[in-house]
């Protein structure tokens, strides 16, 4: 999505958005800025306030403080004008189990007084077609699998042409084929010019489809920007595999890089006679080219290798690594089950 409008045009804009339940602050001063036309990944561990933020955005719950603007209009003040242009899947699909999939969509579509009733049947049909549920349209939702319900939920969000789609965990419960379908669906929606706001805890998914992302942790927004910006915020680093760890660290220090050992590599180095000790792995953060250009300590990776070799360090492996979104995510939100609550 390179064709993003003026930088000021935002589909979703929240400022200082907070929601308090009892004495727990579920959402704490969130300032989201979702550019028009973007596919925006909304990341965060379970319980970090993603769904509550979405509820506040859609006017389902009232904010304790702060404000929301959707498509340039105030929420929930101008809810009637805004919501018909927004399709949403909030906290999983919910349908009447005793009605068929098509009947459910008919009923939810009839709930919106703004859409023409004349085109309802056609719109329901095309929405079902878009998510591949035409064959199950007349089946009772009770008999649907979780993935089919999820598709029906997405179909509901697509009943009318939408400028903004808010999809909360859209691939939950879907098989790999379904996940791929949703991914291509999101891409095609974005290609049609819609802004897609996808909440997820599946990082790989966000990395594949999103242009922008934001990360929530314990109710706070800890990072936000384009995917490239988010990755860059975590520094690139170099990885050196050498048996001469001490000497290498000295060389790196001279170059202005602070090395940290990361234990002994146990894998044998091909061609090495000394297979029991491949050497030690050293990591050193590499100042990003953009920031380093301004400062004094610009170090090219090839210069590091040259310096190491010149100093007689036996370099057995060398690489520059970019932090993945996952590492960045874990760095921001905590490790393992020890996530901030």
């Amino acid at each position, binding site marked *: 999505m390179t064709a993003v409008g003026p930088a000021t045009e935002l589909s979703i804009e929240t400022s200082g958005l907070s929601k308090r339940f009892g004495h727990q602050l579920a959402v704490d001063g969130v300032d989201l800025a979702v550019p028009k036309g973007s596919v925006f990944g909304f990341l965060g561990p379970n319980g970090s306030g993603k769904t509550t933020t979405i*509820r506040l955005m*859609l*006017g*389902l*719950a*009232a904010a304790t403080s702060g404000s929301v603007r959707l498509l340039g209009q105030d929420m929930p003040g101008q*809810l*009637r004008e805004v*919501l*018909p242009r*927004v399709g*949403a899947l*909030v*906290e*999983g699909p*919910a*349908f*009447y*189990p005793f009605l068929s999939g098509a009947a459910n969509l008919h009923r*939810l*579509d009839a*709930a*919106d*007084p703004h859409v023409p009733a004349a085109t309802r049947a056609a719109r329901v049909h095309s929405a079902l077609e878009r998510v591949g549920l035409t064959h199950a349209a007349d089946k009772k939702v009770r008999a649907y699998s979780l993935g089919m319900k999820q598709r029906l939920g997405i179909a*509901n969000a697509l009943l009318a042409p939408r400028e903004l789609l808010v999809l909360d965990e859209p691939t939950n419960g879907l098989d790999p084929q379904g996940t791929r379908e949703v991914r291509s669906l999101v891409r095609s929606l974005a290609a049609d010019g819609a802004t897609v706001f996808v909440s997820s805890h599946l990082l790989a998914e966000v990395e594949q489809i999103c242009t922008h992302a934001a990360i929530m942790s314990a109710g706070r927004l800890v990072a936000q920007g384009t995917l490239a910006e988010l990755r860059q915020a975590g520094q690139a680093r170099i990885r050196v595999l050498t048996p001469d760890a001490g000497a290498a660290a000295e060389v790196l220090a001279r170059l202005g890089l602070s090395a940290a050992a990361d234990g002994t590599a146990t894998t044998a180095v091909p061609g090495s006679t000394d297979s029991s000790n491949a050497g030690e792995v050293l990591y050193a953060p590499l100042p990003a080219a953009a920031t380093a250009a301004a400062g004094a300590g610009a170090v090219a990776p090839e210069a590091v290798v040259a310096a190491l070799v010149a100093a007689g360090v036996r370099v057995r492996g060398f690489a520059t690594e970019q932090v993945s979104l996952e590492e960045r995510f874990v760095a921001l939100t905590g490790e393992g089950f020890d996530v901030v609550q």
Partner: protein
Amino acid sequence: MLCALAAIPILIAVAVRLSSAVPAGRGPAFLDRITQNGLFVGVTALLVSVPLFLPLTVGVVAGDTVAGEAGLGTLRYLLVAPAGRVRLLLVKYAGAVAFAITAPLVVALVGAAIGAALFPVGPVTLLSGDSIGAAEALLRLLLIAAYLAVSLMGLSAIGLFMSTLTDVPVGAMASTVVLSVVSQVLDALPQLDWLHPWLFSHYWLDFADLLRQPIAWDSFLTNLLLQGGYVAVFGALAYGRFITKDVLS
């Protein structure tokens, strides 16, 4: 539920038909008249269902209005559609009222039909001593059903309000039905007679005035006024609650 309600007059008619003559003065009022005139099946069935069956079914329907949607999770999708909170509340109340109108009507009509099928139908002697033809008697029966429909408006509004308080439909249904029972119990305590005119169930059984010639409309109007008051108060409470409610279901 309408089928269950329709079963009441059928049950009464079949039971009376199969048993020997009912001794006068025993059982629900009018029960002994059924064998002479089938139209009384409808009246008897309505009389029997007023204390429990009608409030029970109306409580279930009214209690389910908002809480049922919340329980299924469809409430959030209706609001995001956007259905509009006020509009949704009005439509839901209209649905509950439609049921409150249909329920006594079904009892009355099924009663008249089964009565006509199993017993002779003839002129009806009213409480005032006058006698009216079968056609007009049927009209009076529908009038009683209308009276009961009005009687259930207040309870429907209470159910709607209860329904906005919770995401568990059974809770809203149960509390509505319990309230109707409590109101009838209070109405039966003579020590509380200052309270009686204000209880929504106070006029529920006062449809006898519709069986006089000419019809005495006083109780109909008093009942209408009281039920209107309940609809206004609990409608406003439901509105106040639902318009600011955080939908988290």
